[in-house]
């Protein structure tokens, strides 16, 4: 068999060989991966790339929007009137609750003033629409159509009509990335609405139910209990519904109960979401023990979003 030289003759040369390029770019990628995992220095580069990418994202939206508008056009009169009747009925139902809420809130403000407690500020909420869900099968994220232009900040809570959906983790000029409560690296401080037991709800990744960890088997929790945000983290305002306890296993050999939950909000369905601005609800963090630690965390704190 004749040996065919891999290297082209000099007059066909086109720069370094593919293997050399692969090694070069591969090393850069590995450095980038490492830097992006450990530190958050690359947000500037991400912004630049996001700006380049924006026209493509808008282009990807167009077919869906066109289909939706065609669908809207052909919505039957009957469906519209049914919808209208339903919404009117809901508005009437909500009106009573809203009126009661206003008086209760005033009462609450007066009582809090009497107790000299911190006031909870009602902050502006921004309505956003889901642009697309992340393709990454390892993370539970989605993208919404407003970002720095609508004054959305990293760390703000995102809810839908039923409950908590997630938290804003990155803000781009025209859109924002929301990490869902089902993401593996996401945790929400919650309490059981019925009994007031506090815990933290940990996401478990795609297709797995979020769970409450490190709960004693004797904890006062039942299947069907509603978990609401406790507000202790200063990120989520207190009292928002998060999940419902789906299964509960108390095994005698185990130190902790195994508690799986199902999100109440349409985490993977909702298209219209609400970003809750951060009021002054956040309590100041306790002083860090060592000075060097605080300077280190200053960069990282950006992502958490709580001051």
């Amino acid at each position, binding site marked *: 068999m004749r040996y065919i030289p891999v290297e082209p003759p000099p007059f066909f040369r*086109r720069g370094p060989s*593919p*293997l050399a*390029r*692969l090694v070069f*770019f*591969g090393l*850069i*990628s*590995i*450095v*980038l*991966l490492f*830097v*992006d*995992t450990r530190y958050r220095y*690359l947000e500037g*580069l*991400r912004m630049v*790339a*996001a700006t*380049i*990418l924006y026209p*493509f*994202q808008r*282009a*990807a*939206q167009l*077919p*869906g929007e066109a289909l939706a508008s065609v669908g809207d056009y052909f919505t039957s009169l009957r469906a519209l009137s049914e919808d209208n009747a339903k919404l009117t009925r809901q508005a009437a139902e909500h009106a009573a609750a809203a009126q009661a809420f206003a008086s209760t809130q005033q009462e609450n403000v007066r009582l809090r003033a009497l107790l000299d407690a911190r006031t909870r500020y009602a902050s502006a909420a921004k309505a956003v629409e*889901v*642009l*697309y*869900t*992340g*393709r*990454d*099968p*390892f*993370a539970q*994220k989605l*993208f919404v159509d407003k970002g720095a232009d609508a004054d959305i900040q990293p760390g703000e809570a995102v809810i839908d009509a039923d409950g908590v959906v997630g938290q804003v983790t*990155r803000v781009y000029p025209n859109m924002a*990335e929301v990490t869902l409560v089902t993401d*593996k690296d996401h945790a929400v401080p919650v309490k059981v609405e019925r009994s007031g037991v506090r815990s933290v709800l940990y996401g*478990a*990744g*795609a*297709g*797995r139910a979020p769970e409450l960890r490190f709960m004693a088997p004797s904890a006062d929790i039942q299947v069907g209990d509603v978990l609401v945000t406790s507000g202790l983290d200063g990120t989520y305002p207190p009292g928002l519904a998060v999940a419902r306890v789906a299964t509960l296993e108390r095994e005698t050999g185990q130190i902790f109960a195994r508690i799986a939950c199902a999100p109440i909000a349409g985490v*993977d369905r909702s298209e219209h979401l609400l970003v809750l601005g951060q009021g002054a609800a956040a309590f100041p963090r306790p002083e860090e023990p060592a000075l060097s630690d605080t300077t280190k965390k200053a960069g990282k704190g950006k992502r958490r979003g709580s001051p």
Partner: protein
Amino acid sequence: MIALSNIAHLSTAGPEEILRPVRPWFIAVTLGVALAANLLPLSGVALALRPDFIALVLLYWCIQEPRYVGVGVAWGVGLLMDVGDATLFGQHALAYALLAYAAEYFRRRVLRFSLWQQAAQVAVLLGLCAGLVLLVRYVGGAPLPRWTYAVPPLAGALLWPVLTVALQWAQRPQRSSAEL
């Protein structure tokens, strides 16, 4: 109408057809369309089935036109995709760079096969690409995905013959039927 029958039978340009040279802007446009297709707002089954269009188009151009599209271009597009998916920086870039290198390595052999046989080899390459991403994320501490993770590379391989014929359409000689 040789070209039309080729579409019907999903075959590449035969040896009697000399493809016209590709224009660089056409490559850029196809990559742009693939980028937009990757960012389509899908969910549910469509999302699970959606192949990685960028990997497919990159693979096609790396095999057909290695002078224009190689490891460097693939890496750059991968960085954009990392931002679009909000994944770790360098994850897609690394995978696409490896894909481009593999294409460069295999291209002379792949082109000798029929389209469906090519598709089988493309499935292996796309699977390699997905496997590398899985490895990177697993080392980074992510949980193992479900079995549906293996579906997009296979869907991409099934699209390969259609994609090849569609992208070659612009390069087919115009009046081949009159001369033959």
